[in-house]
């Protein structure tokens, strides 16, 4: 294990491995440490969705850029991460929602995201088994999509190592070395790594890492909330390709896994804050109540698996991305509240450039995601969240 | 590896091993009346033979021990042959220049008394024909296993352990 590097990235999820890759690409000597196996935190538990349909400028612009990167990521990483632009379809059940959709669409189009309002009949063409009679209209953007989280993390890590990065799994950070308000490195269960910069990409565990650096746990109040998913047996592709979500139905959503066609179903039933990851029986029944109302034919599909994962949520459900002013060399990219995977390519590039050059051309609104906003009591509008 | 007994490599006891591990009754005893000979050389947890023997001729120090038959005490009633879960008990009786072998037969068809059947040796080779002397049908057998006594040439008394019933 190396004992010295330019930058140590803590956390081996999609955010951490993306940052490590982009740093290595800029010629930085980077070491990534992950306390379990890569992706074991939230990435390997997520619902694989990637969307630009938010309700605020910062997230829309960041995600528009991120989707552009997703489109070429397989080429860039020389590994097929199976990104598909199969779209997101939000569905309205009330007139008020239709009005809200129209506002969203105006905002999306303003920033070049081609969302449009569609009729239930059009929605049924896009998703043949849809229970279209229950809906008044659809907010449809065909350029949203999905990708394979396992392959994405593996591809980022593989390319980073190719470019000289070191990645250590089952290596847990036990302390952050800070001398006169400057990061000097990290201590782990397998030894110490000296470094000038430390990036906290630990998502749900980010507050614990902050505490190790001498900051108050509530300085960036990220709380882990248990969200869950169920999955059906593999089904024929082309039936529910887009992510379909009627927000009014407790933020329930479903989509076919881009890899084997099994249908992933989620709903807004949330537990926490808690680090416990045990799936619950209540969720299993609740999520399927909604899923089979959205797609009645799903009642015949066999459910084969259920698991839980974190939404590492901040009070306004927007992540904390940027420098920690109190400690020179300490950076953070965490608290993604269920959006980490989709943002990873853009956030990775932005953070790498921030660390190396102090600024980045990535359209990331550093003010919006400022980690210090919480201590100033300046919350952003809540990021549009589902599931 | 070499200390694995031959019968555990081959899956059957040779007559020589039968003599060495089990021990045979005297010719005199074999002439008196049928006597039970256990082809059960391995220590396994199994006691029905000892439990069923009406004259306590089958000794077992503990439930895993191999059965030792006191050939003098054995009255040749064949209950042990009927009950044995491993179908490993046989009865032998020398009569003139023939030997009568009593063996379990859980195969269809069950032969009739007087029927001529094909004699099989320990590896299933046909070694001749023999007449069926007695049959204990399934319903009358204490272990729900039909018991057949067949007449074999004296020199095959320790080879024939199965029969095949062939009917046109």
């Amino acid at each position, binding site marked *: 294990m190396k004992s010295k590097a330019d930058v140590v990235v803590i956390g081996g999820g999609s955010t951490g491995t993306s940052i490590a890759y982009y740093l290595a690409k800029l010629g930085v000597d980077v070491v990534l440490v992950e306390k379990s196996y890569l992706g074991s935190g939230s990435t390997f538990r997520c619902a694989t969705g990637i969307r630009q349909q938010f309700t605020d400028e910062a997230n829309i612009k960041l995600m528009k850029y991120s989707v552009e990167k997703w489109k070429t990521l397989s080429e860039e990483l020389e590994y097929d991460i199976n990104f598909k632009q199969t779209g997101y379809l939000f569905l309205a059940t009330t007139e008020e929602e239709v009005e809200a959709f129209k506002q969203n669409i105006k905002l999306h189009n303003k920033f070049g995201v081609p969302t449009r309002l569609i009729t239930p009949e059009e929605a049924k063409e896009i998703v043949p088994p849809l229970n279209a009679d229950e809906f008044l209209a659809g907010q449809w953007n065909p350029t949203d999509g999905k990708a394979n989280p*396992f392959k994405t993390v593996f591809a980022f890590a593989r390319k980073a190592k190719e470019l000289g990065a070191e990645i250590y799994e089952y290596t847990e950070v036990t302390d952050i070395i800070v001398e006169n308000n400057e990061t000097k490195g990290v201590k782990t269960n397998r030894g110490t790594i000296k470094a000038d910069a430390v990036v906290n990409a630990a998502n749900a565990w980010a507050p614990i890492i902050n505490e190790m650096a001498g900051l108050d746990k509530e300085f960036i109040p990220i709380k882990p909330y248990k969200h869950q998913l169920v999955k059906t047996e593999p089904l024929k592709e082309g039936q529910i390709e887009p992510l379909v979500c009627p927000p009014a139905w407790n933020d329930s959503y479903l989509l076919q896994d881009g890899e084997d066609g099994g249908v992933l179903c989620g709903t807004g039933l949330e537990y926490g804050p808690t680090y416990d990851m045990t*799936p619950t029986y209540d969720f*299993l029944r609740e999520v399927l109540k909604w899923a089979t109302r959205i797609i009645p034919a799903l009642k015949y599909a066999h459910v084969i*698996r*259920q698991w839980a994962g974190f939404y590492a949520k901040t009070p306004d459900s927007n992540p904390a991305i940027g420098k920690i002013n109190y400690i020179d060399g300490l950076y953070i990219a965490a608290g993604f509240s269920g959006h980490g995977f989709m943002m990873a390519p853009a956030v990775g590039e932005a953070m790498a450039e921030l660390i190396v050059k102090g600024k980045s051309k990535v359209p990331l609104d550093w003010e919006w995601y400022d980690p210090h906003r919480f201590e100033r009591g300046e919350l952003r509008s809540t990021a549009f969240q589902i599931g | 590896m070499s200390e694995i007994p031959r019968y555990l490599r081959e899956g059957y006891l040779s007559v020589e091993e039968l003599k060495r591990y089990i021990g045979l009754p005297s010719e005199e005893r074999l002439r008196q009346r049928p006597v039970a000979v256990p082809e059960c050389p391995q220590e396994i947890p199994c006691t029905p033979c000892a439990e069923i023997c009406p004259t306590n001729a089958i000794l077992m120090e503990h439930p895993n021990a191999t059965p030792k038959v006191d050939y003098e005490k054995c009255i040749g009633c064949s209950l042990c042959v009927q009950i044995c879960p491993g179908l490993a008990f046989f009865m032998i009786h020398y009569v003139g220049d023939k030997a009568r072998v009593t063996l379990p037969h859980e195969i269809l068809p069950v032969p009739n008394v007087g029927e001529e059947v094909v004699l099989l040796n320990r590896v299933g080779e046909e070694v001749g024909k023999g007449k069926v002397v007695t049959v204990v049908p399934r319903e009358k057998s204490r272990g729900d296993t039909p018991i057949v006594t067949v007449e074999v040439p004296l020199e095959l008394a320790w080879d024939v352990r199965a029969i095949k019933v062939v009917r046109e």
Partner: protein
Amino acid sequence: MSEEKKIIICRCNDVTLEEIEALIDQGITDIETIKRLLRIGMGPCQGRTCLPMVISIIARKTGKSPEEIKLPATRTPVRPVPAGVLVGEMNEE
């Protein structure tokens, strides 16, 4: 590798011994990563048939003993169940 030469380890997703060994040769020896990249144990039988074999392949290839290789989590439902049954009544046509 002719089509015939394939030794199937995971029957649900047709993952072969050759594919698993190739990944291990690339240095991927963690069962959780191998399972996700090759989609082993993610089908209707949830790894009942294949995971013990995968563990012994990893043990043989890496020298680790099977005790050291953690069995991936067993998730509910432990048998496939039609979604409608979990909701309540299938409400047939």
